[in-house]
């Protein structure tokens, strides 16, 4: 069975989409000969030519804006934003047009656009290289928002995003880019809008997504040695959100901890807790806790582990919920 890094899996997903649909275009800053700063687009320009895989000027609003025009002309754009912290100039085009164009035109103009954004911290990056922008996109009606946690699922989600008729933001957890997973690269399996259970337990449920899934799994291992078993639910799809899976997991144990590295206030945790309260209040045995980044800007490399939810913080929250 072949082993894939997340970078290689994403690269394969782009290659597969370019092969299967001649209307697919891949572009962004440095995605050509260099293959992107993370090498996700490596080799694609040579294989598919400079017309279908191309560099753009450093112009994020322009990149998102030409996606709209290209979609109107019948193309299927897959754009890369180089880093989370550099994606903000594009927000005006994304919020104003990418997300709204289909609605503004009464469904006449589709926006089958994929915007990939290497996201989240944990790579000892410079400032503007460790941000968690998911709430901006999740809160923008008209977008779908995906974030994989493992290589095989990264392949699946990117293939599904590119094939989707609606605009999709794919937040790639750059700290997991070099993680490896064995198996077959396939788009079959859980679709957009479905969470997946990565580990079953009966004491507590850990709900997370992206890079923090790995830490949740590590915390679950630590806790198991103490006799505390955890279900780990990987959301994968932030919009649409798998409310059934969230509520079902909450009902199964009555104890839930939500983990993300984005700042706490109005982060995904707020939405998840609200859904649990709406759907599974009677089943709760303890308050739902959040383990998140604090409400301050992302710190420099030497301090990022202070900021990021640690295995210890996650484990402590589970112990607290279980002991309640």
């Amino acid at each position, binding site marked *: 069975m072949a082993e894939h890094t997340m970078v290689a899996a994403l690269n394969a997903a782009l290659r597969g989409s370019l092969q299967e649909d001649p209307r697919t*275009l891949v572009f962004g800053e440095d995605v050509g000969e260099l293959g992107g700063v993370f090498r996700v687009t490596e080799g694609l320009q040579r294989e598919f030519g400079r*017309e279908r895989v191309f560099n*753009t*000027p450093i*112009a994020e*609003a*322009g990149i998102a*804006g*030409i*996606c*709209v*025009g*290209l*979609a*109107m*002309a*019948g*193309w299927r754009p897959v754009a890369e934003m180089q880093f989370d912290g550099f994606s903000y*100039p594009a927000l*005006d*085009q994304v919020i*104003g*047009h990418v997300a*709204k*164009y*289909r*609605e*503004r*035109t*009464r*469904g*006449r*103009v*589709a926006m089958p656009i994929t915007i990939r954004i290497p996201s989240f911290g944990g790579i000892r990056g410079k400032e503007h290289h460790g941000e968690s922008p998911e709430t901006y996109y999740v809160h923008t*009606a*008209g977008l*779908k928002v995906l974030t994989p946690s493992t290589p095989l699922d990264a392949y699946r989600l990117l293939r599904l995003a590119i094939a*989707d*008729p*609606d605009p999709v933001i794919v937040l790639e957890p750059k700290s997991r880019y070099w993680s490896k997973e064995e198996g077959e690269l396939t788009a079959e399996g859980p679709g957009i*809008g479905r969470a997946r259970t990565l580990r079953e337990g009966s004491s507590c449920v850990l709900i997370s997504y992206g890079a923090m899934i790995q830490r949740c799994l590590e915390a679950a291992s630590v806790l198991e040695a103490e006799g505390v078993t955890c279900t780990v639910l990987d959301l994968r799809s932030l*919009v*649409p*959100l798998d*409310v059934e899976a969230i509520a079902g997991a909450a009902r199964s144990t009555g104890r839930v901890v939500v983990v993300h590295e984005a700042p706490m206030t109005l982060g995904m945790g707020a939405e998840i807790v609200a859904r649990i309260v709406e759907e599974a209040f009677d089943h709760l045995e303890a308050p739902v806790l959040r383990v998140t980044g604090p409400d301050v800007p992302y710190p420099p490399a030497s301090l990022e582990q202070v900021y990021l939810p640690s295995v210890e913080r996650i484990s402590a929250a589970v112990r607290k919920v279980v002991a309640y």
Partner: protein
Amino acid sequence: MSSENAVPIVQLIAPDGTAVGDTGVGLSDDQMRELLRLMIRARRLDRECWALQRQGELTVYPPFEGQEAAQVGSAFALGPADFAFPSFRELAAAIVRGVDVVEYLQYHRGTWHGGPYDPYASGFAPICVPVATQIVHAVGWAIGARLDGKAACSLAYFGEGSASEGDFHEAANMAAVFGAPAILFCQNNGWAISVPSTEQFAAPIAARAGGYGFPGVRVDGNDVLAVYAVTREAAERARSGGGPTLIEAMTYRVGAHSTADDASRYRDEAEVEVWRARDPIERYRLHLATRGLVDDAWIAGVDADAETWVAEIRAALTVLDAPPASEVFDHAFAEPPATVLRQREELLGDG
């Protein structure tokens, strides 16, 4: 300012109707008359829209009086395969492109957002209010057309105030780098709501083109033949692989920014009078009359037709109600998330 004078203004017909340049722009007599007919109808409809707003039949409406030549002349130079990307004051251009006017005016009636008509039917993108974002869309469309090997171009309408937005720069630079068949068509109407162009930029917009590496031209925006000629030249260059062109049409917003605006708060009426004397329709009528192409009877016929046309639009528009409530939910997604479907059910019931 010396920089103001650095870019010559292309003019073929002087405000008194006399030819000052080569008016042989390749149009038949019928086409020459059609330009006038379109401008007359556009103005008649524009004034009707102002009245309809005052009567409560439209929400806020942005009048284009004074800019008929800039819009009609440029849109007339486009072909059926080309695509125009308007801002929000381009009803005259929409008329030329054959957009269903009643559908267009649904936007100002508040029954739908900027794309109430089929953009593909007439190669006319949705009305775009954030003022410069559509320039980038036009460049994206042009890149796509070029990848398809089509002999077609896009044209983005924007105002001189919009040219201060970063999207103008990103669009212009990308158009240049990709050799996109795009025309960046600026209607410099002197005012961005209350801010005069002198407080918006310090050098002619057309001069910026040189910095991007493509041609820039300043044209008398109230001279319909000149606008047509420079746009056609830009379109032919774009369609044949010659890349983008920036056109700055010097015109004037005779009316207020919108029905919600009071231009007398910031603008001297004497300035408006100067521009009324440069009226695009009267100038062109005089020119065609001198050449014997139109007479009073022809004008009277066009006026009468315009009255009938506007009455039909008014009748069709004023009976338009809000669309079904379900439309709030129906169009945002091709495949709506479960949460949206649930909200739809909660708000609308089973219907």
